[in-house]
C-alpha cells in the first residue's frame, strides 16, 4: 500500500449474496455520504424476504450512513420485507446504539451463521 493510499479513507463497498430467501449485503470500509448512494442502489431491487446488512467489515458509520439505514427501514416496512443488521462492532456498534437502531431494526452479533 502506498503512502497515499494509507492516508486515504477506505472506500465503501457492498457485496450482495443471495442465501435462500435472504439477501446478505456485506458492507466494507466507511459508510458516509459517499457510500450511501451505492448501498441504496444495490439494495434497490429487494422486495421480499429478509435483507441482512453484515457490518463486520464496516469501520465507520456517520450520520449520513444512519440516514440511509433509516430510509431502508422505512422502505422495508412499506414494502413488507425484513431488514436486519449483524456483525457491527466498535465505533459502528456505538453509533447504532446511540440511535437505538435496535428498537427498529433487529441487530444480532457478528458470529458467522447468525442472523
Amino acid at each position, binding site marked *: 500500500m502506498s503512502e497515499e493510499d*494509507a*492516508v*486515504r*479513507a477506505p472506500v465503501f463497498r457492498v457485496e450482495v449474496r443471495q442465501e435462500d430467501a435472504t439477501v446478505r449485503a456485506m458492507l466494507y470500509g466507511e459508510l*458516509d*455520504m459517499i457510500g450511501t448512494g451505492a448501498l441504496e442502489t444495490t439494495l434497490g431491487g429487494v422486495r421480499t424476504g429478509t435483507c441482512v446488512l453484515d457490518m463486520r467489515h464496516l469501520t*465507520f458509520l*456517520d*450520520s*449520513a450512513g*444512519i*440516514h440511509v439505514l*433509516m430510509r431502508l*427501514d*422505512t*422502505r422495508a*416496512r*412499506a414494502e413488507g420485507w425484513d431488514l436486519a443488521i449483524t456483525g457491527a462492532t466498535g465505533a459502528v456498534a456505538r453509533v447504532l*446504539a*446511540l*440511535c*437505538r*437502531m435496535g*428498537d*427498529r431494526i433487529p441487530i444480532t452479533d457478528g458470529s458467522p451463521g447468525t442472523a
Partner: protein
Amino acid sequence: MSVDPALLPSDEDERLEAVQRYNVLDSPPDGAFDRVTALAARHFDVPIAIVTIVDTDRIWFKSRYGLEVDEIGRDPGLCASAILHDDPWIVEQADRDPRTLANPLVAGEFGLRFYAGAPLTTHDGHNLGTLCVIDREPREMSDEDSDTLRDLAAIVMDELELRLAARTVVDREQTLRTFAERTARALQASLLPPELPALAAADLGAFYEPARDAEVAGDFYDVFPVGAEGFALVVGDVSGKGPPAAAVTALVRHTIRTASMTTDDPAAVLRTVNDAMFLGQTEGDLAHYCTVHLTFVTPLAGALVLRSAAAGHPPGLVLRAGSETLQELPAFGPPVGWYKDPSFASTEVTLDAGDVLVLHTDGLTEARQADGSLLGEAGIGDVLRRCQGKSSPAIAEAVQAMLHEPGVDVRDDTAVLVVQAR
C-alpha cells in the same frame, strides 16, 4: 504585436467580443471538433486540417489534424485573410498566387502550397475563425468541394453554438443556486442565537461553522432560559442540505423552546418534537430527520445539575477539573422524524466548579486530520486537557482553531457549545 490593418475585418471589435462570448480560446481538446478535422483531412485527402479561432494577435487552433503547433501569429496566418470573406477562401497554388507568394508559410520552410478555409460565422454574422484544409502540394478545389468545406464549417459552428447555449444554462443555474444558498445561509444564521446569554451561574462558549462546500447544511445550537434560574442547551443536526433542511431546523428549534415551557424532562420535549414533525404526516413521508442533544441546566449551590436527553446525537463530553479522563454522557434515542412514538430517556449529572461540558455535532468528531484519521473524542479530549482553567469562550475558540490546522478536512457543519459552572 500589431496586425496589418488590411487584415482587420470591418467588424473587428464586435468580432472579438463574439470570440470572447463563445469562450473557446485555450479550451481543452474536444472530440467533436477533432472528428470534423479528421473527416475533412480524409475527405479532401490533405495532410492537415484545422479549426482555428482568430484572436487579437494570434490564430489559435481549437482542433488540429496533422500539425503539432497550438497557435501561430495572426499576421502570417492565412486564416486572418480567410475571415475577411463570407465564402470559402481558396488558394490552389500558393507559391504562384499574388495573394500568398510572399507569405512566410509559403516562401519559408513550411512550404504551404494549398489552402482552403471556410469561415466559422456566428448567427449574427461575425467570423470567429475557420475550418481550413492545407497541403504542401498544389491542389484544385471544385465548387462541390467548396460547398462540402462550407457544410463542415457549419457543423463546427453548430457545435460552438451548442456549447455556448449549454454554458449559458449552466451559468443561469449557478446564479440561481448561489441565490438559494445565500438564502439558506441567512435562514441558518437566523436560527443561531445572535449572542450567548450572560448567565450568573454558568460560563458559556459556542461556535458554529458551516461546511466548506457551498451548500448549507443543518447544524444549529440554542441557549435559552428555563424557569427562574435554569437554562437549556441545545445542539442539533438536521439531515440534508439547503432551504428544506433549514426549514426543519426552524421547526425543531422552535418546538424545543415551546415544549420546554411546560416540562422539565428533556426526554418529554424530544417526544413532543417528534410528534410535531409527524403532525399530518405518516412514517416515510419525512425527507429529513434531526439528531438533537437537549440539556436542562439548573444551578444548585455553586454546581450545575444537568438533565439530558438525546435523539441519535453524539454524547456530551465532560472533563472533570484536574482529571485526565474524558467522560461521556451517554444519552440514547432515535433521531427525531424517523418513526412515531419513539422512546427517549433522560440522564442526570452534576458539573462542579471547573468541570467542562462540551456538546457538539458529528462534524467535529468526524473531521479528518492530515494523516486521514478522525479527530474523534480523543481530539476533543486533547484540547480540553490543554485548556484546563480557561474560560468557556477560550475553550470554544481552541476547539475551533483545531479545525483550521493545516491538513484538517472538515466535511460537515460543526456546532459546539461549551459550559462550565462559574
